[in-house]
């Protein structure tokens, strides 16, 4: 099946890494004599995890960036990656612990002792009064894997609460659940270099050019070698603009579309019957369902020309090698898990997996979105991607942690549910780290009510986020360049972040903060970690034998290879770049089909709210914007959010347009563009109230993954008065205030303002 390669492809994470000139930067020393050094590391932002060098001066200060020829990115960086280093010595950095003596009073500087004691007192008071589960931990996936492991252990061993979850709940959980259901394991199936060998590349619900810009080189690389590109998205994004087939479907209809593809493929005899028979179970149920999705019906549901469905199905069905990728666009739905399953059904029915150039993957959002969902900071999970309700897993992890299995809490609830429990008074205290839910969670006003109802709230961060600014205690953590540790990128490749600078002021590493809390809670003996390396050593043991087996991973091996794909079950194991070559991760080795019936989103359109609102990202900003809204160049590129509306809706570019949903109303400047469907509007979500897109979104959750339906709710638009202003990001007491751009115009294009414009 595999042709000889007519062109060189560097195999990921192998000996070729050094040959690619990764270390040291070639020629660089000629420019910069002995007064500075380069630290090889990776970016702090998205799941691509581009390699980069940080430039460090004689005083040990990070002051710049140099491209790095790592085999993930081959020196390429996006605008966020180029300026990431500007966070390190940023004037907004939190340099000291902050406490608030009473709600309503301002935060004031405190000593570490005072701040940590307040947290410990808060935990003790709440757990004694209301029970252990009344104190919760809400974590994040921009932390290194060592830290995510530590936080999972901290919640279960130090707090003994069942309430711990993480911000991947807003991001990766639909894909993760679907992968586990279908393949028995949750990881992207192929290294991205496989794209260079494919004939058909299908990308659904992912604005790759803006959210994973450096992944574009693989997409364009595939096309350079003759691959056809299919892009499924309600908006004509930068990668959709020149795609061979662009499928501008209606938000919330993905499952119908993919069922429609499989309908045509089955009808026209383009199935891989041998693959279905040998390597899968459950096809008959899917066949029965997809027979009810002929192109005519699907076209009506999706708002598409039925011919498009025929074309895409033929392209995919006739390809010898095809690959499908998807991201939040199909996952942020009440049917998120099922949407992913329909893509997997298509892949399985045509045998397009487990070979070079044939495969499937979700594109993980956060830098450690993959590693952060594997080792136990998720409400239902123990390290190694183990199920917290699996008796064998419980016994093993209890043994590793030196606790009685009976003392290991059971499954908790998901992130958004926890906030609802806060509002309901079931959860009274919260330790938050690495997240900003007041910007990132749906139906923001309800989220605020949940946080307001807490008796005690501590937040760890390196900038004062909108969420941290309301906490009772704020503990200053580190940016990525001030610590070391591993992360796993969207391919499943484990890479190493290296330390380039010391934390500023009194800021401390997040793992030190957590271990110190554990010590003050009286369980210091189980948290006696003196370095990330010591954490990794325990994580290797804890993950051993699990799906996500990291037991063969060491810092030295990662440095040497440039990254290893898990599972790596022993120190002489080369890693596993491509999964499912011979078997899937179920005991019988076979993948599972899952029949899916499409249904309407949680909030269908009606006469009062006739349009669909979809939310998403723009290239200059990242997640809740707590980092990127403080970096001048990125603010200049995209100073404020806007609403994208089709010209047929009757507005002129720049008009104030009020978006109204059942949750709230916000007035944005209109970007009137032909690149969006007539029945759909778009708002980017990186900004805080009063312009937060999440003032508008619905908090309906997928029943399995509990992911919110960020990607579609019903809305209407009205001619507005004045556009709502952007509020500047909060700063700690004493720091110079951030100045918000007073800019009422929309950007020139969704990617921002052109350089030639005032």
């Amino acid at each position: 099946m595999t042709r000889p390669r007519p062109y060189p492809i560097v195999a990921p994470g192998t000996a070729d890494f050094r040959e690619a000139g990764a270390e040291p930067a070639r020629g660089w020393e000629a420019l910069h004599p002995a007064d500075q050094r380069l630290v090889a590391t990776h970016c702090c932002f998205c799941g691509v995890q581009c390699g980069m060098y940080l430039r460090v001066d004689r005083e040990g200060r990070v002051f710049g960036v140099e491209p790095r020829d790592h085999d993930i990115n081959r020196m390429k960086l996006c605008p966020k990656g180029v300026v990431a280093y500007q966070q390190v010595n940023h004037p907004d950095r939190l340099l000291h612990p902050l406490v608030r003596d009473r709600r309503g009073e301002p935060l004031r500087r405190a000593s570490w002792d005072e701040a940590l004691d307040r947290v410990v007192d808060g935990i003790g008071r709440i757990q004694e009064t209301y029970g252990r589960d009344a104190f919760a931990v809400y974590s994040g996936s921009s932390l290194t894997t060592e830290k995510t492991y530590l936080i999972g252990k901290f919640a279960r061993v130090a707090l003994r609460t069942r309430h711990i979850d993480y911000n991947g709940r807003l991001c990766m959980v639909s894909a993760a659940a679907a992968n586990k259901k279908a393949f028995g394991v949750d990881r992207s199936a192929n290294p991205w270099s496989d794209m260079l060998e494919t004939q058909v590349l299908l990308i659904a619900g992912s604005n790759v050019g803006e959210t994973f810009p450096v992944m574009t080189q693989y997409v364009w690389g595939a096309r350079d070698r003759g691959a056809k590109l299919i892009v499924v998205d309600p908006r004509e994004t930068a990668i959709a603009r020149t795609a061979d087939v662009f499928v501008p479907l209606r938000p919330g209809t993905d499952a119908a579309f993919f069922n429609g593809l499989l309908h045509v493929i089955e009808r026209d005899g383009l199935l891989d019957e041998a693959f279905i028979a040998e390597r899968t179970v459950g096809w008959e149920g899917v066949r029965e369902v997809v027979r009810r999705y002929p192109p005519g019906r699907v076209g009506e549901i999706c708002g598409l020309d039925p011919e498009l469905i025929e074309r895409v199905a033929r392209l995919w069905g006739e390809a010898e090698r095809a690959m499908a990728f998807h991201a939040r666009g199909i996952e942020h739905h009440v049917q998120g898990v099922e949407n992913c399953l329909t893509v997997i059904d298509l892949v399985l029915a045509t045998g397009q997996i487990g070979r070079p150039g044939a495969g499937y993957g979700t594109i993980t959002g956060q830098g450690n979105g993959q590693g952060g969902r594997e080792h136990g900071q998720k409400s239902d999970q123990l390290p190694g991607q183990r199920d917290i309700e699996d008796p064998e897993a419980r016994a093993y992890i209890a043994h590793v942690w030196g606790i009685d299995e009976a003392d290991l809490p059971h499954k908790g609830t998901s992130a958004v549910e926890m906030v609802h429990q806060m509002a309901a008074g079931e959860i009274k205290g919260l330790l938050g780290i690495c997240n900003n839910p007041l910007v990132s969670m749906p139906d923001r006003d309800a989220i605020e009510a949940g946080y307001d109802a807490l008796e005690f709230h501590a937040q760890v961060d390196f900038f004062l986020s909108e969420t941290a600014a309301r906490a009772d205690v704020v503990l200053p953590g580190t940016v990525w360049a001030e610590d070391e540790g591993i992360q796993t990128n969207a391919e499943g490749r484990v890479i190493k972040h290296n330390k380039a600078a010391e934390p500023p002021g009194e800021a401390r590493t997040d793992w030190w903060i957590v271990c110190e809390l554990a010590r003050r809670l009286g369980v210091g003996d189980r948290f006696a970690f003196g370095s990330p390396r010591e954490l990794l050593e325990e994580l290797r043991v804890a993950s051993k034998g699990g799906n996500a087996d990291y037991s063969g991973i060491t810092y030295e091996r990662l440095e040497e290879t440039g990254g290893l794909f898990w599972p790596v079950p022993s120190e002489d194991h080369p890693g596993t770049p491509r999964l499912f070559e011979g078997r899937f991760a179920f005991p019988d080795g076979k993948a599972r089909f899952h029949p899916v019936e499409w249904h309407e989103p949680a909030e269908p359109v009606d006469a009062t709210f006739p349009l669909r609102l979809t939310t998403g990202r723009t290239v200059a900003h990242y997640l809740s914007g707590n980092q990127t809204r403080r970096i001048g160049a990125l603010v200049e590129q995209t100073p404020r959010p806007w609403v994208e509306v089709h010209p047929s809706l009757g507005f002129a570019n720049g008009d104030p347009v009020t978006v109204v949903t059942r949750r709230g109303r916000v007035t944005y400047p209109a970007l009137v563009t032909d690149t969006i469907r007539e029945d759909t509007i778009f708002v980017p979500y990186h900004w805080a109230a009063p312009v937060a897109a999440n003032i508008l979104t619905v908090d309906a959750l997928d029943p399995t993954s509990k992911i919110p339906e960020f990607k579609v709710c019903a809305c209407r638009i009205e001619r507005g008065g004045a556009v709502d202003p952007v509020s500047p990001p909060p700063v700690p007491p004493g720091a110079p205030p951030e100045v918000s751009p007073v800019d009422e115009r929309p950007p020139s294009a969704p990617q921002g303002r052109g350089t030639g414009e005032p």
Partner: protein
Amino acid sequence: MMRRTLFIDPGRCIGCQACVAACRECDSHRGRSMMHLDYIDGPHTVASMPTVCMHCQDPIAPCAEVCPADAILVSADGVVHEASKERCIGCGNCVHACPFGVPKIDHEEKLQYKCNLCYDRTSVGLAPMCASVCPTGSIFYGTLEELLAARPSAAATDIVVFGEQEIVTGVATVTPAGAEVAAVPGGGP
């Protein structure tokens, strides 16, 4: 065109402005980007176009030709340099002469700024910052052979036509294979 140069392919551009950000990091003009990134006919499309100095070969560097202070050096390797700070009088003649709208004048400093092909980097064998980081290869640095090895179906030209005026540029433009050289719209009769 056997030497290494920049190849510009607007068809691949995603408008992310990594080139703009990276240009600011170059030590010769830190904090100031020489890149132009335009959204073409925004907001009707997401199409975008990076513009660098094309390092005009024939006629050689109109910016330098019209400079009354003789401030713009064209080095033997064909690189058209930024106006020398010692000589530049900030008059803006170069801005008017440039067919691509590349030079910028800082009116406070009364100095011209423009892309010099990252001379500090290219002269020691490194690629310019913009091409190093460009996530799409819309800005590519290398030889024509290297370009074609990576993109078998591509073709490139070093000629830009404005009406009756042809300009041979040191920086190349990628064209679809088999495409004819056509006048740039708006370039004259």
